């Protein structure tokens, strides 16, 4: 029982990071019906930007963190400007194809600039390891989970409490209608990509902090696929719930199934979970409920 609770707890902390990844996919999907396949590359790129500021240039973390996020947002915006904006009004599928291409280009750029070896990555955050009785929750995942949930809440407040957020939600519903009412849909899309890139960078920094940072970390981005498919492609609350589900599934598989000899099953377990959910609810747990008038 202790083992079980320990595994669930670990899963929740890492799951919150996955939830943040899911959110990044969801806000872009809601706005332009595009699945951002380049999420893993954005993640590594954002983490590297922070790495340069913090480790190479030696800025203190309170400077490096916001500046790094701003830089990641700027990169996201620039990429949107060049690759997505020209396709506005075209089929969402073509935008999705572009993100696949983006993934390859960005991976090559990362390897070109930083090479493919790993960089040691350690933020000296205060130690908040929780050790009580037989439970042990390590400091880094707790930090990661907390920072992710804070970012998540900040994004939610931005979306639901500000005028910009309202404009974003309006564009998410229908670009043409939003344009007809004077909302500059192109600019809003740029903002969305920038926000998404910044959030992904937060997740990237937290994930890199578990160990090392290298170009191979792009595979973490793949975790966002089960998250958004379980939660529903266009549901923000779905991303949160599904992120935790994926984290816990992964952690439980690591604790109970891997010792049976199925090494590496941890990586696959979220996809099994995804299959089960999709069999029962094809639109995901919280996928759009279409408004029907009575």
């Amino acid at each position, binding site marked *: 029982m202790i083992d079980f609770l320990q595994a669930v707890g670990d899963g929740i902390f890492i799951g919150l990071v996955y939830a943040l990844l899911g959110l990044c996919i969801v806000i872009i999907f809601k706005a332009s019906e595009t699945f951002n396949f380049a999420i893993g590359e954005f993640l590594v790129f954002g983490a590297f930007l922070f790495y340069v500021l913090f480790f190479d240039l030696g800025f203190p973390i309170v400077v490096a963190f916001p500046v790094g996020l701003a830089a990641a947002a700027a990169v996201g915006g620039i990429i949107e400007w060049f690759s997505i904006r020209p396709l506005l009004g075209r089929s969402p599928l073509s935008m999705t194809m572009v993100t696949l291409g983006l993934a390859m280009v960005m991976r090559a750029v990362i390897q070109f600039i930083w090479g493919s070896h790993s960089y040691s990555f350690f933020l000296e955050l205060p130690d908040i390891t929780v050790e009580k009785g037989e439970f042990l929750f390590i400091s880094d995942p707790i930090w990661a989970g907390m920072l992710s949930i804070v970012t998540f809440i900040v994004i939610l407040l931005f979306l639901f409490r500000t005028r910009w957020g*309202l404009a974003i939600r309006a564009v998410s519903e229908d670009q043409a209608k939003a344009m007809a009412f004077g909302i500059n849909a192109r600019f809003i899309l740029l903002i969305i990509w920038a926000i998404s890139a910044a959030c992904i960078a937060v997740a990237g920094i937290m994930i890199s902090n578990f160990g090392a940072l290298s170009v191979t970390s792009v595979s973490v981005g793949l975790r966002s696929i089960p998250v958004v498919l379980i939660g529903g492609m266009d549901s923000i609350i779905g991303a949160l719930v599904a992120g935790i589900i994926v984290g816990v599934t992964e952690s439980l598989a690591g604790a109970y199934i891997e010792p049976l000899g199925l090494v590496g099953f941890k990586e696959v377990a979220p996809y099994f979970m995804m299959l089960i959910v999709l069999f029962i609810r094809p639109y995901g747990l919280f996928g759009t409920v279409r408004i029907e008038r009575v």
Partner: protein
Amino acid sequence: MLSINNLRVVYHDVISVLNGISLEVKEGEILVIIGANGAGKTTLLRTIAGMIHFYNGDIIDGDIKMGDVSIKGLDSSDIMKRYSLTYVMEDRPIFEYLTIEENLKAASYSRWDNKVKDDIEMVLDYFPGLKRTFNRRAGYASGGEQQMLAIGMALMTKPRMLLLDEPSLGLAPLITRELFQIIQKLNRSGITVVLVEQNAFAALNIGNRGYVVEMGRVVLDGEGQELLKNEDVREFYLGAGETTRKSFKDAKRYKRRKRWL
């Protein structure tokens, strides 16, 4: 106020929808544009509002002028900001998953001042029916309320000119009459209205002038009442015409007369 000269618009580089249309909107009038499906009415409004590129259309010839300045090729948000021109798309262009209040606020995005609250009150004065469902999602409102909301949202942008694309689409006759009364009221408050309608009789009744559009050009224009009396308009758009039943022999004549000029 707004003049359109010999405008030609092509979708996807092949589908020619507007073939040299020319018309003029005078300040303070209600201009009615009628025409069959596919005549190019919606395309015309999209082009004026600067949204044609979004639909993969291109202006290949002609000009749109606001006063003396060409607004051809400007982006929709620029046109709205500079010339206070608002386009209400057909089929109730509201954001279904936002509440009615949020819808009205979202439409005020282009202004960003602190008079939004007063303006919401103003809109609710025009459309008291919206108060009842103010905090509910707009998708659950009735068709009439949704259309009222769409026009209310347009008012939030402080328009001097409104382009209305088939506001009576799918509404009961009584609601349509109410809606047209409100449009007249708005017009009296100083807003120029361009009204595209299938409900030609009702529209021409409130309109100062009208154009008949067919195959992407204007085939007939005149005062509203004058058009109502025009025999061709009566026959093809009002379904009134001659009261006697036609034989097949006459049906042929019908086709010949449809060429207008």
